[in-house]
């Protein structure tokens, strides 16, 4: 009699014996009435880096999920204790590598708070400019990769085309596209040039239409909307209790934006809205990011308009590196340069915390100083780590296909999450 393969009782055992021949110890049960443990990552394209998830499944429903971190842990907080304040700036590039330049200026701001120095107005304006440019660049990746994860590949190509233009401005501004290391304690590495202004103006003019196109492509995309709507919901209370920040918190109905609530740089001089939605699902986070890009463009226009002339480094010779050409020609500056590079700045004893609104949320640095040129302790408060800690709450009860949409809506950067 003919036996269909699926009814063959020996079939399963043949699979099993084949597996056991391969030097594996497996027990197979009926997959339909058993829970399954699924290991996702660290090498998975939808985890945006090296995030590992252990997921307990009942059929297609997620019962529990445990994120595992540390695959990109480089010990930056330990490295910081062995380097001077200036030496740590390049390491901040490698935290959130999608918006390196805003990490640079955030770190410099924290050290300046410890030292008690004011940067010139022009430097503050340039810092606003680069922070908002990096917010646009980072949100473009977030939007594009989230759309790609749920199947709309075209958007990724379009957002990366826009992002390239921002990176080109970085290139002209500081000579690097990714690892910018643009900030200096008390100022910046180089001055903003008229060429940068022209490039940025051209970018902003084009960006309005290009963003509208991207938006149109997704807003009318039935598959994208259906896969993101009511997915990964989180209550307002949970979002606050878990200490979430950035677009995720604002999508949950909490209008917290440090640029407005605890203004730093010169953010109190600009007119912009804090985009807040209440749906708190993956789609709301997407819309918050789209809205924030428009607000960033608004801030950029105002900052370009108001950009004052003047120095771009504070006049504190004992704390701020002198201009390179003066180091080579003047004795005083040579001595200062030597002392600052070899021994470091001498900060007061104390501890400070400075948080800024980076594209992912609140990026903060706690610096404990013992009065020497090296930080005694430098703690990085990374928004990605915090936002990822809500992942198990969001995933509970979701379908297996929602996982990628939810991770995409959190927009974690593992360089920052793993430190």
């Amino acid at each position, binding site marked *: 009699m003919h036996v269909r393969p699926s009814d063959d009782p020996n079939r399963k055992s043949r699979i099993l014996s084949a597996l056991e021949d391969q030097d594996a110890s497996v027990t197979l049960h009926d997959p339909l009435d058993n829970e399954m443990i699924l290991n996702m990552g660290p090498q998975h394209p939808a985890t945006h880096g090296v995030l590992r998830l252990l997921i307990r499944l009942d059929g297609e429903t997620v019962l529990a999920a445990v994120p595992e*971190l*540390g695959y990109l*842990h480089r*010990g930056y*907080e*330990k*490295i910081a*204790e*062995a380097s001077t304040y200036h030496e740590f700036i390049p390491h901040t590039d490698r935290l959130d590598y999608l918006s390196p330049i805003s990490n640079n200026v955030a770190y410099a701001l924290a050290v300046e*708070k*410890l030292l*008690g120095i004011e940067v010139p107005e022009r430097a503050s304006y340039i810092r606003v400019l680069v922070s908002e440019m990096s917010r646009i660049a980072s949100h473009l990746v977030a939007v594009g990769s989230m759309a790609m994860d749920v199947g709309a590949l075209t958007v990724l190509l379009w957002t990366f085309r826009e992002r390239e233009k921002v990176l080109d401005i970085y290139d002209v501004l500081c000579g690097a596209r990714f690892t910018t290391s643009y900030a200096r304690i008390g100022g910046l590495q180089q001055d903003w040039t008229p060429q940068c202004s022209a490039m940025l103006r051209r970018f902003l003019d084009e960006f309005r239409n290009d963003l509208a196109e991207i938006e149109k492509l997704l807003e009318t995309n039935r598959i994208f909307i259906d896969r993101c709507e009511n997915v990964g919901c989180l209550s307002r209370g*949970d979002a*606050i*209790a*878990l*200490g*979430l*920040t950035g677009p995720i918190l604002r999508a949950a109905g*909490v209008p*917290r934006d440090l640029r407005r*609530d*605890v203004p730093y740089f010169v953010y109190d001089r600009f007119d912009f809205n804090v985009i807040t939605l209440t749906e708190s699902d993956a789609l709301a986070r997407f819309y918050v990011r789209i809205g924030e890009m428009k607000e960033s463009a608004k801030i950029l226009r105002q900052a370009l308009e108001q950009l004052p002339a003047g120095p771009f480094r504070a006049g504190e010779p004992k704390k701020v590196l002198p201009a390179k050409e003066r180091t080579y020609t003047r004795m005083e500056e040579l001595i200062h340069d030597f002392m600052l590079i070899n021994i470091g700045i001498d900060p007061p004893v*104390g*501890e*400070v*915390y400075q*948080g800024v609104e980076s594209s992912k949320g*609140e990026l*903060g640095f*706690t610096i*404990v100083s013992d009065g020497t040129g090296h930080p*005694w*302790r430098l*703690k990085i*408060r990374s928004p990605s*780590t*915090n936002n990822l*800690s809500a992942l198990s709450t969001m995933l509970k009860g979701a379908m297996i296909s929602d996982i990628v949409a939810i991770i995409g809506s959190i927009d974690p950067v593992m360089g920052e999450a*793993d*430190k």
Partner: protein
Amino acid sequence: MNALIVEKLRSFAPAAVLQTDEFRGDLTVTVARNDIVRVGEYLKNDPALAFDMIIDLLGVDMYRPEDRFEVVYTLYSLKNRKYLRLKVRVDEQDPVLPSVTGVWAGANWHERETFDMFGLKFAGHPDLRRLYMPEEFEYYPLRKDFPTMGIPDSLPLPRR
């Protein structure tokens, strides 16, 4: 605002407040180790203060004979748009302190990280595992007696 916080805390628990410091406008309140949960609940639930978010939690190895470790809690009040730092001192001989996960759920991963990096044990934490280092790692890397270059063979490569 800083004066109000100190005053309220002192009247709530006079014995729990050990020290208050102000540096660059930031207030740091040092609290007795066993009172941290009580003080945290008060700060969170008091309607005038309402420190409802935990932004950061970090360990510091002060490398001194007594009270070697410090744990610093950075709190934020959505209502007042205000930061506050709480500080707890922990001795090396008895590196245990109460967990604040019951007050702010967001402290969960921060406490795991502090355990991972300093070996401080948070009593009452629901899931105190290492956050970054592998489970079988024996050392606490951010302690000052752990060398920056690492310890050879402390991280075994996976067997093939």
